């Protein structure tokens, strides 16, 4: 079982308290009416699905209820960083390099 750290509760908890909600930092088009069908499809469905270091939204659904973001290596399942929603995306290459040493 994975241990997931909630940046709002400040504790690591079993993954059963959380739900993973897919890739993070996907911005909703500001004006949906002016967005082409193709761009809307990209926003709704297309994800980078990286093999390696990936940014995800997680929700502490059976805890404080908050969404936050996590950087996870999809190959090893290692979490490299947890941070609150609204904070900028960390430098993934830098994180991968740090984790690799």
């Amino acid at each position: 079982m994975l241990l997931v750290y909630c940046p709002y509760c400040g504790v690591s908890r079993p993954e059963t308290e959380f739900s993973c909600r897919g890739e993070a930092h996907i911005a909703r088009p500001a004006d949906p009416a002016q967005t082409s069908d193709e761009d809307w499809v990209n926003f709704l469905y297309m994800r980078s699905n990286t093999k390696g270091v990936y940014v995800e939204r997680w929700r502490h659904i059976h805890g404080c209820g908050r969404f936050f973001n996590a950087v996870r290596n999809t190959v090893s399942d290692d979490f490299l960083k947890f941070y609150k929603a609204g904070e900028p995306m960390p430098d993934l290459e830098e994180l991968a390099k740090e984790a690799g040493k």
Partner: protein
Amino acid sequence: MSDVLANDLITPDAGVSPLLSQSDVSILKAAPIARLSFRAREAALANAGTAFGVPLPTQPLSSEIGAKRAALWMGPDEWTLLAPEEDLETLFETIETALGDQPHALVDISERSEAIIVSGEKAVWLLNTGIFVDFSIEEFPVGTVSRTIFHKSPVMIWRTGADTFVVEAWVSFMDYVSGLLVQSAQELTAA
């Protein structure tokens, strides 16, 4: 029994016989209580705390208790406020009046959940049969409150004493939670 609790709010339901009564752990159904869900941002907290009678804790997973009052941290903008049933209406009015037009949500959720009191030297052992949380006193000190998962049911765990926990579950899930706890406790006597 209530003297093992760190507050005067959670008391065993006198009309209900113990769900479990072993020398090392017991489970008692708690008497009904008023529960308010309060959600607001920081600006409204001071007023709400004054009106409620106990400041709302801002430290994650912590609780504040006062005379017949308890404020439990549920999330960075969410608290559960506990008080005796008979205080519900006046308390609700007092908080609403104090907050005026400050943005907030105050909802009576008294009937949504039920509480049991799990107490005894094997209380931690028993809870850990269905909850993957470290309940050592260093990691989960007295006063800590947290929602989590017991097997497949969401529960709220509030440690009110070194060996005493209040376990809340939604009304329709409580039979499942208390039933599994009672069943798991049989292992202690099976030797």
